[in-house]
């Protein structure tokens, strides 16, 4: 409770600067827009899904639910931008900066028979300094698995065992390629774990083979609160 500012006669009452514990917590606002996609080289409609991955010390205060973002479906001529234009406004309270938020992107394709399928994946890290930033995230499409790599022991050094490796590294899995040619859809990831470094399954990313795909453009403004007071960089 603080006493309101009063002016009585010819004297002014001194209004106290009341500091609460919440005033000294670090908070971050990411305000921006998923602008669109470029260079996807497809005639189908594309839309983007964004999931936010952050560490335990990050608390998403607003919006209340972290169910992820799904944009509208956009069509584009060759060389044109697939315009998604999806605004977002995230308010985090930070008690531990480990696990800086990442945007896990999944681009979906809507083909002419109204069927949706995964097109490509990407990971982008939100900027760490205040101001306006344009994040460009290159995406990749998985084309298959290199299951022979699983035979090796987990800690075996890649450089020492070159014979076994050079033989298997070049063999792209023909089964996935054949299936995707006839079914017209690429293989999909079963989990988003290979996209983020925090979860345990990230090490399995080494068995993936992928092909490059277009890029997703995100414009974001970052507002930091109390970073300077707590001696964190960026503000």
């Amino acid at each position, binding site marked *: 409770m603080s006493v309101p500012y009063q002016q009585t006669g010819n004297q002014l009452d001194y209004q106290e600067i009341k500091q609460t514990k919440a005033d000294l917590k670090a908070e971050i*606002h990411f*305000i921006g827009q998923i602008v669109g996609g470029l260079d996807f080289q497809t005639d189908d409609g594309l*839309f983007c899904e964004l999931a936010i991955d952050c560490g335990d010390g990050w608390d998403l205060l607003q919006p209340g639910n972290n169910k992820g973002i799904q944009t509208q479906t*956009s*069509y584009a001529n060759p060389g044109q931008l697939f315009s998604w234009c999806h*605004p*977002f406004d995230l*308010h985090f309270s930070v008690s531990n900066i480990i696990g800086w938020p990442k945007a896990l992107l999944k681009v979906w394709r809507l083909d002419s028979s109204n069927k949706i399928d995964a097109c490509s994946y990407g990971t982008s890290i939100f900027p760490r300094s205040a101001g306006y930033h344009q994040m460009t995230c290159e995406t990749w499409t998985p084309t298959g698995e290199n299951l022979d790599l699983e035979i090796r022991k987990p800690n075996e050094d890649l450089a020492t065992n070159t014979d076994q490796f050079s033989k298997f590294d070049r063999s792209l899995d023909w089964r996935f390629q054949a299936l995707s040619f006839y079914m017209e859809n690429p293989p999909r990831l079963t989990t988003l774990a290979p996209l983020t470094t925090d979860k345990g399954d990230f090490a399995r990313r080494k068995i993936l083979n992928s092909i490059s795909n277009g890029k997703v453009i995100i414009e974001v403004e970052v507002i930091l*609160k109390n970073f300077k007071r707590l001696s964190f960089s960026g503000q």
Partner: protein
Amino acid sequence: MNTRNYKKDVSDQGSIKGQTNQNFGFSQPQQFQDGVSRIQEEMMDPRNIQPDSMFLNFSGVLECGECEDEESLRIEYAVKYGGDDWTYLKTSNNADDAEPSGISQLSTSRNLHSRNIVWNFPFECNFQTKNIFGWPQVVVRLSGPDFMGRSVAKGYGSVHVPTQPGYHERIIRIFKPLPISGFTGFLGYLLGNTAELKNFDKVISSGEGREVTRVKSVGYVKVKFHVTLVNFDKFGYL
């Protein structure tokens, strides 16, 4: 001399430290006379007063833009903001100043070689807030005549107001909703009922419920912003 000696424990104020309502007028002993003007100056110094809200004042110009093969276009804008914490401060008592929005003139590109259409449409808004969530966005709609001269919407777009003070230029990407099928598109073209967004400012600014809409990119609009932030450093931002 310690000018803070004027604070003493005022028991009827509870345990609020530093609170005082003493009369610094004429009942004080002579030795405090020097400190009185300094204390009053200190109390009136704006750096010592904790404000209760932040203010955002921005002005700008919707400068120019292009939309596929269109020659004549008009631009309409609305500023959408988070409803609960943000307050739009009106600068006049006109009825059309109730919400920040505006409609520009109908402008035409200069010659056949360039599709650039210039509006040079200025805007200015003041907001009062206690929370950053719900930062204002400028949502625009381009509209113009179709082949029969009826006014139809040609594209939509949105951009957030920049958060850093100073001068900024932004590009708004414009998209147009696609009709559901070729037939409805053709019929809409004839009747002037092309695919449009109802309540475009709410739909575009929130992003909710757009998962099943299909759109196509049609152009861009260049915007210039000038931003001033008030009291943001007192609240720990900036």
